[in-house]
């Protein structure tokens, strides 16, 4: 079945083939019709070639007989909703009439269809008319499903590895877990937050990770050491690490060599401590640290960053700001914070006095 809609205009001369009744709703010359019929009768007496429009099955108006009886009848309007008509009518009608464009209706152009796999699609013909065959170019996209398959495979492999490595996020013992040259900014992609409760020594020993902060951000996970008591040697002996995120060692009772021997370590976003946190050679042999913001309280165990000669002023002031006030302590104890000659030179006397007035000796 074909469909017709819109406004059409019959040709000046209509080919009457004869004898057909075509049920179709249309308007012409201000009247609504339900059918049209062409009739050809040729006898020895009469040659009858007529086109009639019908308002009912029994009431018709002759509109064409050899010529149009009224030019207004040439125009027929099928309305805006497509209506089904017989193939016979469509073939005869479109051979004798021309579709009038309903401005601003747009004619359907060629249609490009991208098909990734077996399925259906919709041609973008809404609001458009067409009185011709539509060329449809079909492009079968094999690349997209392939690439999607590759990505799904990668994800499945990633999930399988990390669900096993961090048993569905339940791992709490991280001793040596990310140590060694196999770990870098690409291979280090944990699926779950790293929240150890014990055994973290050598967690990043000799790792090849450079930007641990960004690597964690990329994965949407955190490194949380705030529950760990023994934080010794977590980042010790590294020649790659440059940037660390917030490190919370406020529960630590051991910190020996926490950041020891990190030749390239430049930045620790934040180091969270409390007044009982020990600092046992934490920063020795780590001369590149330039940014280290300390928060919390530095207390009885002092603080020593003399190896970190490149510390910026913000870092130094954060250290001074964290020093517990021992100004009332007259026990004779020396409370010492070791910044080193290079770092002391970055501070004004007023800034140094903030520390000494709190009872701290600056070295």
């Amino acid at each position, binding site marked *: 079945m074909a469909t017709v809609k819109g406004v059409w205009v019959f040709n000046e001369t209509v080919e009457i083939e004869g004898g057909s009744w075509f049920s179709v709703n249309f308007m012409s010359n201000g009247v609504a019709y339900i059918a049209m019929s062409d009739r050809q009768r040729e006898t020895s007496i009469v040659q009858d070639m007529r086109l009639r429009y019908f308002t009912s099955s029994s009431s018709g108006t002759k509109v064409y007989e050899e010529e149009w009886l009224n030019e207004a009848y040439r125009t027929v309007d099928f309305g805006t909703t497509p209506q089904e008509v017989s193939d016979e009518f469509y073939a005869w009608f479109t051979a004798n009439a021309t579709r009038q464009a309903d401005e601003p209706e747009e004619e359907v152009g060629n249609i490009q269809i991208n098909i990734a796999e077996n399925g259906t699609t919709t041609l973008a013909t809404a609001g458009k008319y067409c009185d011709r065959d539509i060329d449809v170019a079909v492009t079968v996209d094999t690349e997209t499903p392939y690439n999607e398959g590759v990505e799904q495979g990668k994800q499945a492999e990633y999930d399988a590895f990390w669900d096993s490595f961090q048993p569905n996020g339940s791992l709490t013992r991280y001793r040596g877990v990310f140590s060694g040259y196999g770990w870098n900014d690409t291979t280090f992609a944990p699926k779950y937050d790293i929240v150890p409760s014990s055994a973290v020594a050598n967690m990043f020993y000799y790792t090849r990770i450079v930007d641990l902060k960004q690597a964690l951000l990329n994965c949407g996970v955190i490194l949380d050491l705030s529950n760990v008591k023994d934080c*010794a*040697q977590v980042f010790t002996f590294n020649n790659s690490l440059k940037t660390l995120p917030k490190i919370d060692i406020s529960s630590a009772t051991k910190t*020996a*060599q926490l950041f*020891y021997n990190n030749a390239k370590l430049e930045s620790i976003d934040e180091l969270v401590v409390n007044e009982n946190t020990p600092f046992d*050679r934490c920063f*020795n042999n780590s001369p590149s640290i330039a940014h280290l913001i300390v928060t919390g309280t530095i207390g009885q165990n*002092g603080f*020593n960053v*003399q190896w970190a000669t490149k510390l910026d002023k913000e870092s130094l002031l954060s250290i001074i700001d964290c020093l517990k006030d*021992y*100004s009332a*302590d*007259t026990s*004779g104890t*020396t*409370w*010492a914070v*070791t910044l*080193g*000659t290079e770092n*002391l030179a970055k501070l004004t*006397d*007023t800034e*140094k*006095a903030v*520390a*000494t*007035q*709190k*009872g*701290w*000796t*600056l*070295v």
Partner: protein
Amino acid sequence: MTETTITMRKLTASEGYVLTNGDVYGKEVYLGVNDSAENWHEITDAEYAEAMEKLEQLAEEE
């Protein structure tokens, strides 16, 4: 308005020496308000290097 004069007491090691109180070491020391110069003494650079060497060895062993 309150005017306060802050006195800074600074110890500077002699050439070839390092200041220490037995725990920490430095070429210059700004004493805390309750600290005393008597708590500090000088050791030679060589003695300082030896002390650091011992600490390093301790670290390696750990």
